[in-house]
């Protein structure tokens, strides 16, 4: 078997790649949920600080 036939056939079609899909969705979930949690937490903290009796 020569070197060419041992190589993966070049079809121009990407096979597999679920690891990249999962990485992209995980990064999106972490960043969007993390940012949402951060905004809600900061908002509630500021509001409770203002509402607290002086």
């Amino acid at each position, binding site marked *: 078997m020569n070197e060419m036939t041992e190589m993966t056939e070049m079809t121009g079609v990407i096979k597999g790649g679920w690891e990249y899909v999962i990485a*992209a*969705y995980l990064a999106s979930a972490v960043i969007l949920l993390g940012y949402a949690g951060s905004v809600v937490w900061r908002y509630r903290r500021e509001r409770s600080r203002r509402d607290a009796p002086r």
Partner: protein
Amino acid sequence: MGKSVWPFGLTGLGLALLAWGTTWGLGFAPREAYMGDVQRIMYVHVPTAWNAMLVLTFAFLCALVSLLRGGWVWDARLEAAIEAGVVLSGLVCIQGSIWARPTWGVWWDWDPRLTTTAVLLFGFGGILALRQFVDDPVKRAVWSAVAVVIAYVDVPLVYFSVRWWNSLHQVQSSPETVSRAFHWPLRINAFGVLFLVAGLLELRARLAFMRRETELAPPPPSETAVAAATR
């Protein structure tokens, strides 16, 4: 600024739509002919990019109104929009980098679309940092609004970069260029990110406004001053 709970409802609706669109995109949408399963990244990357442009356009409008009319409400909205725009721009770069690796063979390339997006991220990130360093609230409002108007020049450059210059990145997607089978997860996630960000923008603007009120409030009178006044 109000105390109503509608921003929480909008945020929840956005998250629910994102869960629905993501389930559709990952589980039920067909595999693309050339990119295979990797194309599923589009359902989260493109909505993030659209909304990043939208939020930064909102920041530009807030900056203009803040400069022309003044008012702390618009400065609070400006602060919220800059922060959300930076988060979305950063996320777009990360998602794009993950998509680039299996399709282009590299994590990053200094091509016009990627470079102008990186400039956007660092430009608006710098404005956010500028706001942290300026103590005077009036100077902070004016300087950051002027900086946003200048930095916004990069937004149309990002959008048109794929048409004006030779770019690795594909041209903008539209209903004509995307197969009908891929429309719904893309649209659902686009509205999901839009509602999520709209809810968070309102909460973040309220937070900025409360901080500004605290910052501008006169200091409480000291005990000696109160005693002298009652004598």
